């Protein structure tokens, strides 16, 4: 909902997800796929410290066609390095 945009809610929720995924579930890697034109989602990936790793052409289907999917990833050790207080 637009009135809730821009408050960092998604970023904070994802940070909690990543903590659970790496600390409690023992995952090695988190991925995010965002449509190339979805600049808000891509900005979230950037704030989470995820790396852009590729473009899956026409990898996302939408109502009126297909969009390129930007592939983001972050590894456990990269996430831990970000979480260490400086």
């Amino acid at each position, binding site marked *: 909902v637009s009135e809730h945009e821009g408050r960092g809610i998604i970023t904070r929720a994802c940070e909690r997800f990543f903590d659970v995924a790496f600390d409690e579930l023992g995952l*090695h*890697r988190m*991925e995010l796929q965002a449509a190339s034109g979805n600049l808000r989602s891509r900005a979230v990936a950037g704030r989470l410290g995820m*790396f852009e*790793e*590729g*473009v*899956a*052409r*026409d*990898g*996302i*289907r939408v109502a009126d066609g*297909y969009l390129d999917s930007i*592939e983001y*990833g972050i*590894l456990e050790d990269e996430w831990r390095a970000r979480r260490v207080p400086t």
Partner: protein
Amino acid sequence: VRPDLHIELGGGAVLRPYTPADADTLYGLIDSNRVRLARWFHWVDDATDVTSQTAYIESRVDDGRSLDGNGIWVGEDLAGGCDLMINGSDDMGELGFWLDEAFVGRGLVTRAAQALMARGYESEGLHRTQLRAGVDNLRSRAVAKRLGLREEGVLRGAGKVGGGLYVDLVIYGQVVDDWRKTI
């Protein structure tokens, strides 16, 4: 899995799904290629006995959409496997394949994958095919090239392989319009 799938690959080779009666043969072939395959596939560690393969074959029946659970058969012999997993919501198919060492170099995987891709685009309404292969898996990457797939990126540490290790995966993709130009 599509129980009725049966594709002639030439030279007496056929692509068809496993049945539970093939579990013994499948386990035997994985076991004799264990070290080679474990370099690229974590599922090799799950192939612990014939029962594990019976369970695998039976579990695939639940996915009625994908063209998977297939063996490449040369006469009576199992030579390897080739699958196209279907992600219906994005109209995308993902290839996977492996071969027994003795059958490498005959073009079996390339022909099997070409047949599955054609079926995916023509009969299943797929818009895109993708393949993820270990960066150092040069044989699989050569197959991707022969299939006309394009390199789209490197997913770091995204591939879990035997022994609990991780490898970087090259992601390859093809859109149906590219495929039409190649046939």
